[in-house]
């Protein structure tokens, strides 16, 4: 089963059509259209990206800010539909991108665990049975009945992390290896992330931590302006990237 392809990305392009003068109001659009001045230019956030990830593999994506790394994660996470090309993802996806999406300050810790976990695609029954374990792991058992607006930001981050990582998915999408909370929890959360990455799922990792990329990934992609510049072993990709950065 280890050769099973979890992710297949084939020649994916992500184009944004933007107007030369930024037009975002109806009034402006009407005026510009009448004057026939609407000029669009295509801008490719992703331009011909292809790769595969098998179960148990980690593929890392590196590159400068704005190279399209986050866009790539969102395309694989199914949030952004690609303009052309094809993305196939088999199985359950855990996106560790900006944790805590949908957290509501007025809801209690337990209610937020339920809502967030369900938003991540888990069933209501499953979440109900996991509330206590998640709260316990986050060290927030005694705070679960309190609206999270009374939490500190570190507590909210712990709750989000504990919920997001409660289940081992088929595909893990990571935007920087997170370590959240205080010193104890930092170690605990970093350890859990590594443990998940090694649990046999497929991993797509976006990171600026080049040492971690070299240590953890099977292959790496160096993205520049949305296009893969170098694709290969982590060592050669990191080397190519560093060579570019230092010039």
């Amino acid at each position, binding site marked *: 089963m280890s050769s099973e392809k979890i992710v297949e990305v084939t020649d994916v392009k*992500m184009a944004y059509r933007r107007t030369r003068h930024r037009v975002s109001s109806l009034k402006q659009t009407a005026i510009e259209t009448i004057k026939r001045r609407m000029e669009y230019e295509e801008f490719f956030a992703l331009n011909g990206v292809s790769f595969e990830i098998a179960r148990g593999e980690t593929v890392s994506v590196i590159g400068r800010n704005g190279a399209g790394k986050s866009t790539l994660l969102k395309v694989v996470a199914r949030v952004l539909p690609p303009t052309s090309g094809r993305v196939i993802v*088999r199985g359950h996806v855990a996106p560790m991108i900006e944790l805590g999406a949908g957290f509501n300050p007025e809801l209690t810790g337990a209610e937020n665990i339920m*809502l967030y976990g369900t*938003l991540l695609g888990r069933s209501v029954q499953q979440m109900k049975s996991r509330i206590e374990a998640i709260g316990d792991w986050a060290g927030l058992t005694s705070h679960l009945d309190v*609206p999270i607006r009374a939490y500190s930001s570190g507590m909210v981050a712990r709750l989000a992390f504990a919920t997001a990582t409660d289940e081992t998915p088929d595909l893990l999408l990571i935007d920087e290896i997170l370590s959240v909370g205080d010193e104890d929890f930092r170690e605990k959360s970093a350890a859990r992330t590594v443990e998940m990455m090694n649990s046999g799922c497929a991993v797509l990792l976006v990171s600026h931590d080049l040492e971690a990329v070299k240590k953890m990934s099977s292959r790496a992609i160096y993205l520049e302006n949305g296009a893969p510049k170098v694709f290969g072993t982590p060592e050669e990709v990191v080397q190519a990237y560093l060579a570019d950065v230092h010039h």
Partner: protein
Amino acid sequence: MQVYDSAVKQTPVISQLKAIYASRGLLRLLIARDLTVRYKRSVIGIWWSLLNPLFTTAVMFYVFNTVFKSRLPTGQSFLPYLLSGVLLMTLFNQGLTMGADSVASGAGVLTKVYVRPEIFALSSTISSAINFFIGLIPLTAVLLISGQTPTWKFPLIVIVVGCMTLFSTGLALLLAIAYINFDDSRSLITIFLMALQYMTPVFYPISVLGPHTKRVILLNPLTSYLQVFRDVFGANAVATFHEWLMMGGSAIALFLIGFVVFLRQWPKVVAKL
């Protein structure tokens, strides 16, 4: 195992409706969130939502009672006529604007995790419907005070509310696309909603209208919702078969149009969130 393939087109409406049905657990949690956030944490709780329609009704009653009271057919009473109009329009306005907003300002969730955005619109319109049912309590009181009794058609209210939920969900999905595309569409929509409000017989009886105006007002689908609701609730209007048909037809038509347009437009606008 669930497989995502971006090359498979998402258009078939039935499969999308099935996907929404499969997410009903999430839908229920979102409705619970909407209601909790609105009520549980505020001091006067659930009564808060009734303050606005009750106050509006009180003011309108004070101003218009002498003008319109005598223009209603015998057996009909102005206060329940007015309150039922205000409550139903509140249901429409609230569902529509909250539904559109929940999608258009859902960037925090919709660009982070994969969820069908229609579920957010639906949760808003359904929680507005639950709100509406709570509003029936003071309406019943007003009805009894006015010397009327609810008719046997009372349970048919569920049909009115169901139709209104579909109608406002469809419209909310269209509105969400407009909101995302154009920053200034909100102010235009506000003007449009106000116009629609006056083109609906909320506080005036249809009988005061001239023949031409009356024809226009009867073309407004919202008029049929009001007529049917007033008929089934306290017999403060007589709904024709044509009005029932218009209510049901506009609900299904608008829901489907909104849904299909949304399915096509969403992939194009999601990057703008």
